[in-house]
């Protein structure tokens, strides 16, 4: 069962991928669920970038949103509730060659996964992270999540959620090494695609919070936001998410924002009158733990045996 070839280098193959190459099992989300649009966008992104499916890994936790990997035709890891981040970081550690997408939900990421989320932001290992934030626990049938609005009915708070929602954007901005924080909505495919593309290209931990419709449990909450596009504030900047006419036509409420402006990013993230969409913050100078982790990857078996023998020398009497 032990292999022969030491390196993971792949001979170049001439292949062209079409969208079907990225489609896995039939998605079983509710009709109208925002997860469908995100899935489509990620599949298009893979196609546009011609990512080799076998070099692509989608890691998730548990939740409606975390079923994502099953619907992709790539490698996938549908792990434990709240624990997508450590797994994804582990996959990255010694595999600089893989494309990694991490998909998580608001409960998965911001409740049970909080510690790993905070520290994954700090580790800043290269991967594209999608928070599918529907403001509710979907899979377990409508319990309050950290991002549920105050007063919102849920099965664990039939009298309404007692606390104002956690703001994942604000939280991340407070973390050292935070390098890429964007927000978009699942129902604007143009902006969603542009955001994913920018995130994928980012050299580090690129976090995209996607406001995601859950028509099954939260029809009202999402209807309001969708019907009134002026509730979205489009952030624009040459360094930010590029926007085209189609996007700008719908999102008329716009503002210039330099994503490297830390305080301005905080100010925007904290706004609760509008939903800022675009690149909130970017720090190209953040340290990358994956570069630290990959040290020694190039050593040959002979070099390693020799090095181990040098270690044994230290203990030899």
């Amino acid at each position, binding site marked *: *069962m*032990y*292999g022969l*070839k*030491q390196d*993971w280098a*792949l001979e170049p193959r001439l292949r062209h991928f079409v969208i079907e190459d990225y489609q*896995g*099992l039939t998605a079983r989300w509710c009709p109208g669920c925002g997860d469908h649009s995100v899935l489509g966008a990620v599949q298009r992104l893979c196609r546009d970038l011609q990512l080799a*499916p*076998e*070099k692509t*890994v*989608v*890691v998730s936790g*548990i939740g409606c949103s975390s079923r994502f990997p*099953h619907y*992709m*035709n790539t*490698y*996938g*890891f*549908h*792990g*434990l509730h709240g*624990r997508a*981040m*450590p*797994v994804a*970081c*582990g*996959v990255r*550690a*010694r*595999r600089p*060659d*893989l494309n990694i997408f991490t998909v998580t939900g608001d409960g998965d990421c911001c409740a049970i996964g909080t*510690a*790993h989320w*905070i*520290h994954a932001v700090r580790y800043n290992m290269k991967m594209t992270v999608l928070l599918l934030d529907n403001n509710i626990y979907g899979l377990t049938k409508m319990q309050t999540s950290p991002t549920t609005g105050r007063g919102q009915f849920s099965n664990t708070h039939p009298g309404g959620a007692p606390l104002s929602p956690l703001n994942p954007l604000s939280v991340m901005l407070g973390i050292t090494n935070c390098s890429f924080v964007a927000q978009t909505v699942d129902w604007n495919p143009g902006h969603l695609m542009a955001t994913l593309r920018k995130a994928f290209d980012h050299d580090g931990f690129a976090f995209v919070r996607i406001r995601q419709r859950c028509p099954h449990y939260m029809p009202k909450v999402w209807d309001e936001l969708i019907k009134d596009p002026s509730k979205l504030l489009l952030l624009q900047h040459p360094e930010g998410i590029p926007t085209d006419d189609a996007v700008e036509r719908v999102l008329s409420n716009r503002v210039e924002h330099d994503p490297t402006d830390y305080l301005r990013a905080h100010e925007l993230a904290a706004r609760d009158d509008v939903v800022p969409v675009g690149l909130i913050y970017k720090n190209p100078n953040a340290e990358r733990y994956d570069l*630290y*982790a990959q*040290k*020694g*990857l190039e050593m040959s*078996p*002979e*070099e*390693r*045996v020799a*090095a*181990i*023998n040098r*270690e*044994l020398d*230290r*203990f*030899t*009497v």
Partner: protein
Amino acid sequence: MKEAGATPASDVVVPVDVKQHIVEFVSDSGEGAQTVGQIFGAVSAKMGNGAWTVEIIPAEVEPPRRSRAGASGNRIRIGRSEIRNAGDAADLVVAFNEQVLYSRIDVGALREGTIILLESKWATDPRQSVRQEFAAALEDFEQRKYQVYQLPLEAETLKLISDPRRGKNMWALGVVCAIYGRDIEKIRGELAKKFARKGEALIESNMALVRAGHSWAEENLPLRFQVISEPREKPMIVVNGNQAVALGAMAAGIEVCSMYPITPATSVSHYLAAALPRVGGFVHQAEDEISAIGFAIGCSYAGKTPMTVTSGPGMALKTEFLALAVMAEVPLVIVNVQRGGPSTGLPTRVEQGDLLSALFGEPGDAPKIVMAPSTHEECFDFMVTARKLAETFRTPVIVLTDANFATGQQPIPRPVVTEDWLAPPFDQSDWVDGVAPYDWDPVTGLSARPIPGQLGGKYVLTGLAHDEQSHVAYESETNQRGMEARSKKLATLQRSLKPPTVHGEQEGELLVVGWGSTRGAIEEAVDRLREEGHKVSSVFLRFLSPMEPGLRQIFARFRKVMTVEINYSDDLEAAHTNEDSRRYAQLAWLLRAQTLVDVDCWSRVPGIPLAPGVIERELRHRLELYAQTER
């Protein structure tokens, strides 16, 4: 009491020949008794003696001076042949003050007749309270029948250096080397290793102190012991169990150690943090134990070879991910350096309390491989085996060691590392078309696994019930089939194992069954009883899940079978329990369920290793008891 300094030794003291001797160095924390104890052990090993060195560690970081809580040092047991445990009471103790000595007395480390080399300066301490304490202690020691020699430790050291706290340990080492006829030039080599970066001058000044102590003892102490040694043919390494695990990990090709600090496991990763980057890997210190194992599982899924290392409370936190690794068949080596439990328990102390939780800790049926090395060599070897088994059986493997191994140092033959141990689990050639990601062999339950990057191998790993394609499946038959496949793997491994070897006669009155670090002590106790003619044998289990085969047949050859373990059980003679309610020691419990043999047990949770003498006494008692009740 002998006033050593005042008693000039005759020129030629004839050394007393001994088979083995136990020496302790104890000082306040920070006075360096640990350093010289280790050097003494290493030098003895180098000379060809068997040796076991164990640290004496205070519970606090900087305990007060001259306090029982502050005792810090080393016990070194040396012998003509291999030494495999820390032994019974000490033969000779060097103590830097009388209070730290009391901490050793408290744990029963001394006996009548133990030789004590005690710093003399406290007799003239400016503080009256100290003088009184010292005087009282000397009187007490006399009553306890210790042989006390006073050493002018600080006084003599001051002749050579200005801060005696930074040198008296070396002087004391010189004294002990004189007593045991150690080759003091060999000390030089050890010092050179230790102070390599700090320069030649420091090495020299320390050597000067060692020589001074040596000369002083030759002139002033009438004590000489000879533990005959034969120079070894093969090269040896001196390691504690944690170092052996760390070296074994590297030899096994493990390139990532993903961990969160916890006593007594951390030192594995301390060494690996320094060493792995040199051999092409790294230590990941995660934000907690959950993340540590999750990261390791991610590494393994991606075709790399990780390990995680922890102790009780950390194991508890890994429970959920461990079940995922079983369910989704992710190879992973988990080292649990057991400490006193439950809960935070006794963080620095030994226990063998995690056997049942290793087997049954996860909700649902989670069969996995559980191994327990019983010697230092096995600490190294089992890492290589564990990694191999993890890959072949596509499963997590738990390696149970403990705090006794972690701190006990021993010379073992230097392993010869081979390249194929390091080989990555798979090359990245294409996955064979049409083979499912869980293509469970109907007989063995085994299957090969695809690795991201392998063309044609794409699958989505899941912790939900799944079919051969790794598709989530709710059907009754699929769930049953998956469970069966995972269970079969253990049976498959079991078929490839040999029955364990019985130590001693193949049949008799009493068979003692053990596991883990107690091996040296149990076999020594058994041998002592055998020498007296008792029909006692012992057997050690290194595989706990699956269990080694043939146990029923072995047990059948003995009138009575019992385990000796360092964990809690209701005592056989305890008033509060009866046959219906007695809670057995952990291995005993397993053996009873599997073999239906009435396996008895004697177990204790003292937080310290079981000494051979203690075991011997208890076995003797059990032999009497059985004789009374059964004949």
